[in-house]
Every structure is written in C-alpha cells, then in structure tokens.
C-alpha cells in the first residue's frame, strides 16, 4: 500500500555515504556493503527527504523547481519514495 502523502515524512537513513558525481549520486551503505546510484530525479527527491517534509510538501517543492503542478508530480514522487524505502535507504515517519 502506498504511503499517505499528506502525513508520511520520509527521512534518509543514517550511515549511507553520499558521493555526488555530475548530477547523480552514488550511495554506499557500509553495513550492507551495497552501493546504489540515484539519477537526477531520484537525487531531487532524496535531498528533500529530511524527516520534516511530508511527501506532499516534497512534491510541492519539486514542482516549484521544475515548473510542474503537484498533481502531475505526486504519483512519481510517491513511487520514488517507495522505491528508496524498499531499498532500505529511507525510513517513513
């Protein structure tokens, strides 16, 4: 079941090492010795997941940055957050 966009506040898990390469990011999780690459869209979501903003607020901010409506973006942001959560990179508060 997808997270509730109005109340869920995704937060980056501690411990992942971030390396920015061009407009992408390599995340390395030492505890699992796993590496992940985030493309530009995933990076934009990742950077806003501070445990304070809700998914709706993240969508709002992204929309302002790239000039798209919240309605148009919300599904993509929910999918992105869900994927990062499934990879163990985010916790949902």
């Amino acid at each position: 079941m997808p997270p509730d966009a109005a109340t869920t506040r995704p937060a980056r898990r501690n411990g992942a090492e971030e390396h920015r390469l061009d407009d992408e990011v390599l995340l390395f999780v030492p505890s699992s010795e796993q590496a992940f690459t985030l493309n530009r869209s995933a990076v934009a979501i990742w950077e806003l997941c501070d445990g304070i903003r809700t998914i709706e607020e993240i969508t709002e901010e992204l929309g302002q940055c790239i000039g798209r409506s919240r309605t148009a973006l919300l599904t993509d942001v929910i999918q992105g957050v869900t994927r990062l959560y499934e990879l163990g990179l985010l916790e949902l508060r």
Partner: protein
Amino acid sequence: MSAAPPDARTATVPRTVYIEFEEHQVAVRSDAHEVLSGLEGMYSAMVVPEGTHVVRTLVVSSHGGAYRITGDTAFQIADGSLTDVLRCLRFSVIQAMMQARPDLLWFHAGAAAADGRAILLLGPRGRGKSTLIVGLCARGWTYLSDDVIPLNPTSSRAVPFPLTPARREFPGQEMPADWLRSPNKVDVPLSSGGLCRHPVPVGALVFPRYRMGAPARLSPCPAAEAAAELLQHCWNFAEYGKAALRRLCDLAARVPAYHLSFSNGDLATELLALLRLRVAPSPGGKRDSVGAR
C-alpha cells in the same frame, strides 16, 4: 632397451618456478613437470629465474595422476586433476600478490594501452574481456592483463599483471553458466614487444556485455554508475577501507566510461580502438555514443 621392472619408481627432481609482480615473487615447487609447465604457460610473462623477495611458497605433489597443493593458500586441493591444480595455482598466485600489495586496488578487469593511456574493461567472466583485449593488442595496443588489474589509487595508474591472455574457444555462442566454468579457453601467445611494462594512467572505463545478435555499440555510462561498477568488480574494496570509495568516485568522475554491447568481437574491438583518439588528449571530455553493425 630393456623395460623398467614393474616395481621400479622413477624420481623427478623437483623444480621451483618463480612468478613475479612488482618485485614480489611467489615460488611454486613441484616434481610434476606438467604442473610447472602449465603454470609457466599461464604466467609466461611473469616468470623470473630466481626469487629475491618471495612472499609465498606453494608445493605441488603428484600421486598417480592426482595432485595436492600445500602451502599458505586459501585454495587448498588434496586430490585434484591437472586442470584443478592449475586453476588453484592461478588464483593462489593472484591472492598472494594481492596480500603482498594491499596498497593497490585489485579489479576483475582486462586492460590494454595506447598513446600512454589504458582502457580498462571490467566485468565478470563471459563478458568478452579477453576477446576484446586480445583484439586490441592485435591492433597494436600494448597488453596489461586480460583478467586482473591492480590500480594505484593515488595515481590512478593501472599496473600490468600480464597473465597469458586466454581466449574462449568458439566465441559467438550463448554462454551458459556451467560452460563458463569449464576449461574452454586457449592461451594466446604474447610477444614481448606487445607487453606494457609500466603502470599507465587510466584513460577510459568500459563495461562490456556480450549479447547474441546485438550490434556493437558504445554508449556513455554515467559517472555514478561507473563508480558502482568499479566497486562491484574490486576484489579488495572492503579490506582497503573507506578511502577506496572516494578514490573510485574520483576516477569515475575524471575518466569517461562506457557500456559496450556486442556480438561480433571484431566490430567491438574496432569501436574500442576509436576510443584511442578520444581518451588521449583530454580525459573527462564529452562522451558520445558510437555504434556499428
């Protein structure tokens, strides 16, 4: 000439072969001529006449066609065939050199150099590294390795580890996993003039993939993905520690990286040869797709 009596035993004088990498040697002692001969074939460009700084000694004994390796190696074998023992020796030597030089990052990769820069081909077995490296060397590139590349992380130079290149027989077929494990490679003779003798700066990273029927195509690989690939194919990343990740990211950020899909090794090699022109003047330059059918 009279035949030897049935209970006669023949004695062969044991001999020691020394394999050298960066002034470190692994000594392999055996009275089994076929083992030492196979080892010398595998490491022909790395055999030296004597050991001055031996880091590991392995002893191979033979009993009625079965072989045993003793010595400090993780690849123990007690009752193996000649193929088994040669495979174990191959990995034991690599392991010993890795332990002797933990300051280097060790990759499952092949490399060849031209114009003072090396192309690294990284990937698991069956991706076509050897075929492509041998092809590049046939076009005048110098040979560093087809399977093992140590990298000096400080200078980003690839260090030659010139195992005798071994090309898979019958390339051009789909390769099931069990077939990849079988000993179906043939050694390709090295000419001494075609060997790269010194560490070379890395000019490009390539991640090849053999795909049945695929046109030869080089496409840019984003730096973050290249860094993740480097991590995946680095054998001693965990031992090297946190600094390794930074070094690999630096390398991926500075050096162009490409995915290469192909089914025809000659066409793929031609594409790689074109990179010679691209990587020589300015590493990190624009990355374009290149394709050929």
